[in-house]
């Protein structure tokens, strides 16, 4: 299909959808309504969201599963109501079904002051490969971390060396190099909070996210 034909098809689809879709033409140039629904996490908790109108009127906080508010025109957001599951399924079901797979996280640990993995962590590498193989258009983020021994600059460097070492291991195991991005957080994102200059094996790690 040429680009022109594709364009015409897009225009035709938009025209049809505009003609058949719900009538929501706003008056006085005010924006159409927006509905925002907070959803619980799979583990049963729920985050929080704060909704205001673009006009700056009012503010409501959504904090439980299915909590929702609607903002009409320039008015303040409506009071929070819990939408029922059937309504959510009808209005949002197909969209929710199109969310990509949740990224899979792996944490690999290192020997003291070294870029060598512990044996337990080395054993996790096949799981990373499996996650990569099971995804559409896979990508792998590799972030190196250190404990607080030594200064922050050399720890940034050590974190990068660790991440680079993991990248090399992944490539050796068959992951395509172009899928992997490497970075370092050094001692700035401790898994276990410690004072400065504290040896902490659980902070000497590389976090991998397969997405």
């Amino acid at each position, binding site marked *: 299909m040429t680009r022109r034909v594709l364009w015409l098809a897009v225009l035709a689809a938009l025209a049809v959808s505009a003609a058949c879709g719900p009538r929501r033409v706003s008056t006085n140039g005010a*924006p159409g309504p*927006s*509905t925002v629904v907070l959803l619980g996490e799979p583990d049963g908790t729920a985050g929080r969201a704060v909704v205001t109108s673009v006009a700056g009127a009012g503010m409501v906080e959504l904090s439980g599963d299915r909590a929702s508010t609607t903002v009409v025109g320039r008015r303040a957001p409506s009071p929070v109501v819990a939408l029922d599951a059937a309504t959510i399924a009808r209005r*949002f079901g197909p*969209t929710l079904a199109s969310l*990509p797979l949740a990224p899979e996280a792996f944490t690999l640990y290192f020997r003291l002051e070294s870029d060598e993995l512990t044996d337990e962590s080395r054993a996790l590498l096949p799981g990373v490969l499996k996650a990569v193989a099971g995804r559409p258009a896979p990508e792998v983020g590799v972030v190196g971390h250190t404990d607080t021994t030594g200064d922050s600059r050399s720890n940034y460097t050590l974190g990068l060396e660790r991440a680079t070492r993991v990248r090399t291991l992944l490539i050796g195991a068959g992951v395509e190099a172009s899928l992997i991005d490497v970075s*370092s957080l050094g001692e700035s994102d401790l898994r276990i909070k410690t004072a400065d200059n504290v040896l902490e094996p659980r902070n000497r790690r590389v976090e991998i996210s397969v997405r």
Partner: protein
Amino acid sequence: MTARTCVALLLASLIASPALGQAPAPAGRIKLAAGMAFVVHEGQRIPAAVGTPVFEQDSVATGADGRVGVTLRDDTRLSIGPQTTIEISRFVYAQSDSQFAFVLKVVRGVVAYVSGRIAKLSPDAVRLETPSAIIGVRGTRLVIEAAP
């Protein structure tokens, strides 16, 4: 600077950033696409397919049968339903210098959002906008339906 630092910085320049002068890293990639869907990148319409990169300031739009799933570099997940247009207005995810920003514009239609690392590391850096509402998040999943 120690020899070790030099080597690491050299590695960083070779690996962490795509060579100087090249295009910036994409904000994310399309992981799922169905029906009529496209990405608008620098004024060019690109059919949305699995693997298509999405950059800061790109739009994604779908027709009546279109759906698109996108995962961003910070693990944020987005799903764009039928007859929907969104814009990745801002996406900054520079971990080493703690620079974070994510602004998503829902121009019209239906969107599902699952927060990623930016919302965790810097919640105030995340803003979702519709024509009538502004949404701030604290680590969460949301669905949004917006009329233009």
